[in-house]
């Protein structure tokens, strides 16, 4: 896919709504999937994949010229299933078999899924591996960049901070961190567990170039990602996307236990009916 292709704002907004709806549909069929954290990251992935940010080839997922998209918050990326299928990474019939016997689409995505680069599910791994990939790309003077999507909850894992120090020390300005900052992990608000409401300041103090965005404004997310992809100032780049966990689902939005709550089938039906 040509990363410079321009798409309209409406196209991105419509894709976001479509991906949100598809994510609800998957969760309706497969309640084992994590809905709330997948709804906070919809616009992030739509911006990356439809906004012309990422270079990729759906028919050759490991094409060397691709930008690497590492999804560290695996549970919260079920919205990627419809996106990858829509883009041609795998047939859309697979979406009906999520978590079913014989499917490659599980409750937590595995790297056997075309488009997933690494193992996720266990948290705190994506950023370090991304740093190694970014180092390799720099080593061979590749123009490809690395985008890694993490949740704010997983920033509690110390391994991230080893990588955060490493990336800035080694000037990995081809590394783009996107934090889906929905403020909630499994049992509580992240601020209540181990406070890090000032992620931006913390990353900046480690030598990163940071910006906060409204993570549900898909146009803003796309614009910022694209602009920063083109700027290389010797610093790794972070976008802290302020998001709402369980966005659009009454009872989940901003509920500290939304990670483990499944909305009723009736509620899902009502929401799907109302989504246009």
């Amino acid at each position, binding site marked *: 896919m040509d990363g410079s292709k321009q798409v309209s704002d409406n196209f991105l907004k419509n894709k976001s709504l479509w991906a949100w709806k598809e994510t609800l549909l998957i969760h309706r069929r497969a309640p084992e999937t994590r809905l709330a954290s997948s709804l906070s990251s919809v616009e992030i992935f739509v911006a990356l994949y439809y906004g012309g940010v990422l270079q990729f080839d759906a028919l050759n997922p490991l094409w060397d010229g691709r930008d690497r998209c590492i999804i560290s918050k695996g549970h919260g990326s079920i919205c990627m299933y419809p996106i990858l299928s829509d883009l041609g990474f795998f047939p859309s019939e697979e979406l009906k078999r999520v978590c079913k016997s014989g499917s490659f689409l599980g409750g937590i995505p595995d*790297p*056997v899924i075309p488009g997933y*680069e*690494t*193992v996720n599910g*266990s948290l705190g*791994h994506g*950023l*370090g*591996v*991304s*740093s*190694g*990939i*970014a*180092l*390799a*790309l720099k*080593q061979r003077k590749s123009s490809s960049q690395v985008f890694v999507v993490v949740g704010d909850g997983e920033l509690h894992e*110390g*391994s991230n901070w*080893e*990588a955060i*120090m*490493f990336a800035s020390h*080694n000037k990995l300005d081809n590394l783009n961190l996107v934090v889906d900052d929905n403020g909630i992990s499994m049992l509580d608000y992240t601020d209540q567990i181990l406070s890090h409401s000032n992620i931006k300041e913390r990353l900046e103090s480690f030598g990163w170039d940071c910006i906060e965005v409204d993570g549900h404004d898909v146009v803003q997310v796309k614009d910022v990602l694209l602009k920063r992809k083109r700027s290389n100032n010797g610093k790794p780049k972070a976008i802290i996307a302020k998001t709402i966990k369980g966005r659009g689902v009454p009872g989940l939005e901003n509920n500290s236990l939304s990670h483990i709550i499944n909305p009723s089938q009736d509620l899902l039906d009502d929401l799907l009916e109302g989504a246009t």
Partner: protein
Amino acid sequence: MSLHGLAMRDAYLESVWREMSNNRLIFFLSADFGSPVLDKIRRDFPDRFLNVGIAEQNLINVAAGLAIEGHTVFAYAIAPFITMRCYEQLRVNMSLLSEVRPMNVNLIGVGVGYSYVVSGPTHQCYEDVSIMRALPNFQILSPADHIAASALFDQHVNSVGLKYFRFDAQPLPAVYADPSLVSADGFCVHRRGEKVCLIASGFMLHTSLEVSNELESNSQKIGVIDIFNLTNFASESLAKALESYDVVVSCEEGFRDRGGLDALISSVVSEYGLSLKILKIGVNPGYSFDIGSRFELHQKAGIGKSSILEEITPLLEKGRGS
């Protein structure tokens, strides 16, 4: 070849240094751990050497990222830290990820067993064989001298896969005059004998040879086998090498009955239905804060030469004259 030779790591790193001139894809990572030979690598290949700091989790994650991008990666640290501090990184980003993304990774862990003699249990390493055996897709290479360390480098540098090289921290006497004895079978028969065969790896091969020497001076011949590949060895050939004995003695500088060398031998004996007894020589599971020479630590742990002699002498006596 000098009797005391080089430290394994220096012989191995010399080979890495040499190969880095030929192979531009080699990348060397250290978790702030050095050696005189490593200084040459740092000096001559500054663009392909990185000290990641005292950060083993990141060491492994960065190594995995480089490796899936096609680099041949060497990751270097003290043995307990490169295996235990980052065990889940090894599991997730190497053992598991390599099922779908091929990678050539060579972990170098220095200081197995009691080889950091006076540094105590944090730096000593009695668990690595058992926990690394638990990870699929890793080979465990465990040389007994610097010649074997170099030979194992030559055999494995270009093979795609995950490898854990476990090295003694001290220079050990050379036992492999001929590097071809470090064969793809993964083990080498050093002595043939009757009734009893000692099987060992790393430092314990030296102890086993001393036991054998002592018995030989008393006209008693026992078998001694070095197993230097603790995962991918020719198990059928090993079973054949063991079948004529009454007792096989696993000699390890690690915890006894915790899934290490003794478990490996038990598995071979059971798989091939060998009718022999297994005697397990290893460290009684538990941590000790004793300070002393390696000889003294081994004696206290019951894995020294005299302890082994004490254990096996009755076995040799029993069969005499019958």
